[in-house]
């Protein structure tokens, strides 16, 4: 395990220190927590937007704290949802009296810890509501399953909801738009190599020299198929078609696109994938309003990428295009 770290137990706390040390004008760390909040928080008359989850997905989530996105991000241990008390501290720090909205990815651990935090916050008189993001079409969504996982599409939910909150929208309004956004965002990823947990030094799964896993989860959860490594065009085609297949899009629809690197894949390769993704979308008559290419929701040093499509109406388009200025995301 070749990692640039100190003690494996300290990776999260030292990482949070390093993030705050990089952007002291944008964010600060809440004492005795691994939560990071905007320096200006709480902002009067603004609903506080809080996200978070296990670490290892950087720049998610601390990198998205700032103007037009999150008011706070709570970092759990590597691949482990943060605890309710930490989330509660973040909620308290960003609540200006207008309430707090949580953006949660659909994993059992994340939901339970964030829900408990919301209950604790409400017990302390803080209005709280939340959305669960479940964009990963690799997982079947039915009442007999735990449902689709939340992956890179979450970043676009941060963007949309962050813009809305920045405009001063009320908690109910935020909930409505969040539901609409989640209903319209879909993603799917592929892994070429696993991530390695700093704690155990173990790979999250094993792949042969010529294999890839289609539909991978961002913690190494299994996908839908393990097969021979394909070309960039074949991969782009497979991911994009899966994603499109789960969205009812029509010619001329406005969409946003994200080609997300999982950590170790060079940006060169992400752009080669994007070339084909855009080609497919153009042939289908889609109007791509905005594209994001880069490492946005990673899985430590996993090699691979994901494709996300968000279907836009006028309201979402305007929110997507409005200013966001955070360490990890700019519009």
């Amino acid at each position: 395990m070749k990692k640039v770290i100190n003690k494996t137990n300290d990776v999260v706390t030292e990482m949070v220190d390093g993030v705050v040390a990089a952007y002291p004008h944008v964010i600060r760390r809440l004492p005795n927590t691994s939560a990071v909040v905007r320096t200006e928080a709480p902002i009067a008359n603004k609903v506080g937007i809080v996200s978070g989850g296990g670490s290892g997905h950087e720049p998610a989530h601390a990198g998205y704290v700032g103007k037009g996105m999150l008011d706070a991000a709570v970092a759990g241990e590597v691949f482990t949802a943060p605890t309710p008390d930490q989330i509660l501290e973040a909620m308290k720090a960003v609540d200006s009296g207008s309430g707090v909205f949580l953006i949660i990815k659909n994993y059992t651990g994340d939901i339970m810890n964030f829900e408990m935090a919301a209950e604790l916050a409400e017990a302390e008189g803080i209005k709280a509501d939340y959305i669960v993001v479940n964009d990963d079409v690799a997982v079947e969504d039915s009442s007999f399953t735990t449902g689709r996982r939340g992956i890179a599409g979450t970043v676009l939910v941060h963007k949309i909801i962050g813009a809305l909150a920045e405009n001063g929208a009320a908690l109910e309004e935020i909930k409505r738009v969040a539901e609409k956004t989640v209903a319209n965002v879909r993603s799917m990823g592929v892994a070429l190599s696993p991530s390695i947990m700093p704690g155990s030094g173990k790979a999250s799964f094993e792949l042969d020299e010529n294999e890839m896993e289609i539909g991978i989860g961002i913690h190494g959860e299994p996908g839908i198929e393990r097969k021979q490594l394909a070309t960039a065009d074949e991969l782009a085609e497979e991911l994009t078609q899966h994603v499109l297949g789960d969205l009812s899009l029509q010619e001329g629809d406005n969409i946003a696109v994200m080609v997300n690197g999982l950590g170790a894949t060079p940006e060169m390769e992400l752009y080669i994938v994007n070339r084909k993704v855009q080609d497919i979308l153009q042939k289908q008559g889609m109007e791509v309003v905005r594209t994001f290419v880069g490492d946005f929701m990673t899985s430590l040093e996993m090699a691979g990428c994901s494709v996300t499509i968000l279907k836009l109406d006028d309201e979402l388009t305007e929110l997507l295009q409005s200013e966001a200025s955070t360490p990890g995301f700019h519009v």
Partner: protein
Amino acid sequence: MVLHVEQVTAWMYQTNDKIQSNKDYLSSLDQAIGDGDHGINMARGFEAVVSTIADTSYSTVSEVLQDVAKTLMSNVGGASGPLFGTAFLKLSMGTKGTEEVDYSTFVESMDQAVAGLQQRGKAEQGEKTMVDVWSSVAAYLHQQDDFHPKTLRKIASSSMEETKGMIATKGRASYLKERSKGHLDPGSVSSYYIFTSLADSLEGKE
């Protein structure tokens, strides 16, 4: 038999010992059908539990259990943190008010713990989660009128073993569908350590 503060703290020390020495084993179980952190999570949690307990003096069992619950809740995270936290919180609430806890009070509080787990995690028995061990132990306790450490161990062990044949439909292992079969559920193995440690402490081990 009744449960004293000393037995309950011994229970936690025993649990911590087992968790620490099986940390890598638990993580490897989780690596097979989850994300590989269960041993790390539990070791972090119970290390915090024993350090809290060591620093505090308690007059009731309920107080010990409340600290256990709070410490797990704020140190474990993931899926198992809120679940074990809830389970111990319910045990604490169910045993409130008395210095010692008699058998029937413990059994009732176990029912509440199982109900709490199920409410939090929305899992039924048979979904290959820690609920399988907790509810089996609770059901077994109902059939007895006192603690029997040996049978307690047996029930914890067999219900843990049974998760091997199950297909997960809750938690991270559920993404594997059929492929989750043939693997033990990590949270059930931790729960097994918890109940064998209870048996140990009832037998006077510290």
